[in-house]
């Protein structure tokens, strides 16, 4: 989140700088060298900030990847593979938090929709059911980032309570 914020801050600042500079371009003769140098210095500062943010992010990912690497030399996969897996896991966690296999056993019959959302996040689909003993159905559907395998989980509600849970094959 902080990384995104910094990146957005940078882009906004850059846009601001460009927009500020744009009108001045038509009056290039009127631009003082001091102003030009100040703007150039500002852009350099922002680029440096962005490099720092990127480096921090990569460092964090690498640290996480190293921690998860197998210990025996025989089982060691490549560092690149481990980093890729970590990035994929992060992407999956950000986009499909319900794909965490540890979350589904936390669901129980009798839970309210709000309690289900608190565990799994918002469903992909939320549909009424034609079944007379099901009022509506939460469907969680997506593809695993690493394998592109399509997975689906379903939670059915009746009278505002969970009555059936079909966990995805994660």
């Amino acid at each position, binding site marked *: 989140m902080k990384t995104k914020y910094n990146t957005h801050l940078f882009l906004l600042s850059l846009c601001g700088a460009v927009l500020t500079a744009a009108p001045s371009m038509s009056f290039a003769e009127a631009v003082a060298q001091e102003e030009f140098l100040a703007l150039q210095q500002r852009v350099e500062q922002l680029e440096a900030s962005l490099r720092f943010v990127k480096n921090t992010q990569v460092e964090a990912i690498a640290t996480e990847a190293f921690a998860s690497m197998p210990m025996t030399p025989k089982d060691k996969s490549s560092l690149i593979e481990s980093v890729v897996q970590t990035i994929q896991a992060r992407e999956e966690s950000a986009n499909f938090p319900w794909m965490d296999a540890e979350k589904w056993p936390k669901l129980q019959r009798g839970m*309210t929709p709000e309690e289900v959302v608190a565990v799994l996040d918002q469903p992909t*689909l939320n549909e009424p059911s034609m*079944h*007379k003993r099901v009022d509506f159905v939460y469907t969680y559907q997506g593809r695993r980032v690493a394998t592109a395998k399509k997975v689906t989980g379903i939670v059915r509600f009746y009278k505002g309570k969970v009555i059936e849970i079909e966990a995805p094959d994660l």
Partner: protein
Amino acid sequence: MQRKTNKQTNNIMKMKKELLASLTSAALFGSVANAEIPLTDDLSAYGYIDMAYTDADDGENLEGGAAEFELGFAFNPVDSKWSAVAELSFRGTGDFSTAGSEDVTTDWETFTISYAASDELSFTLGNILSYQGFETYDATGLFQFSYLGRGPVYSAAYAYGASADYATDDYALGLWIGEADDSLSYEFLAAYTGIEGLTAKFIYADDPGYETANLWASYDVNAFTFAIEYVQTDFTDESELEAYMALVYYSLGDAGITLRFSDVDYDGTDYEKFTISPSYSFSDNVFGLLEVSFVEDGEESATELAAELIYSF
């Protein structure tokens, strides 16, 4: 404008009830389902296709086909208290031998703008479905194919007006106000849902054309659903309608069976119907049923048959 009475039944169908409840953040019974197909973050579409065939041993021909196609759009921005719904219904006339484009009628059904003042209180303006009836307006919420009477037993269906609804987990109150024949028309709803499995509603309607009291209750216990209903309407032309209904539904997982008995007295003419309807949910989206009804209509009797398949999306 007098509220429409050319529909067989007028209850808030399950799908619509849940959708509207979600949209207004004021679910009558705690339901929060909303629309099915997200078109954008704020707009979604939903609907159903209803195919039905009917026959009877009273000389009527086989009728049916595409009974109804309904398409609805719901605009429901997440961070806004305002929401809107528009539903379009295409209905076949039911003449199997001449089914074609000329037999299709198109109607606006729910057509509303709502404001959710709080989680409990909401206000709605537009073409709103009546509070009346255990039997739902749309086929998706019915336990069987046919309705309990020969003609409409509820005095209202969709009508333009404004409503205020207050709902908690235990009870709900609603007031609809519209206009008919240059006079006020209104409906009042009181519902109780404080006991698990129980839903009880009382609806009172006062219109320049009629005055109606409608009371119904349903109770789910294990695999059974029990329901009873009473409707009494005094029309301004001094005709009267009185209807009773009792229903039992037994769920066998995806399958189920409905038994229903109804007795309707309209201006001294008695109409009795006993219905048996096995049904099956092929999935959450596909539902089919068969029905046989034994009807005593005044001095005449008939056996009516029906088969129906509904696909919702």
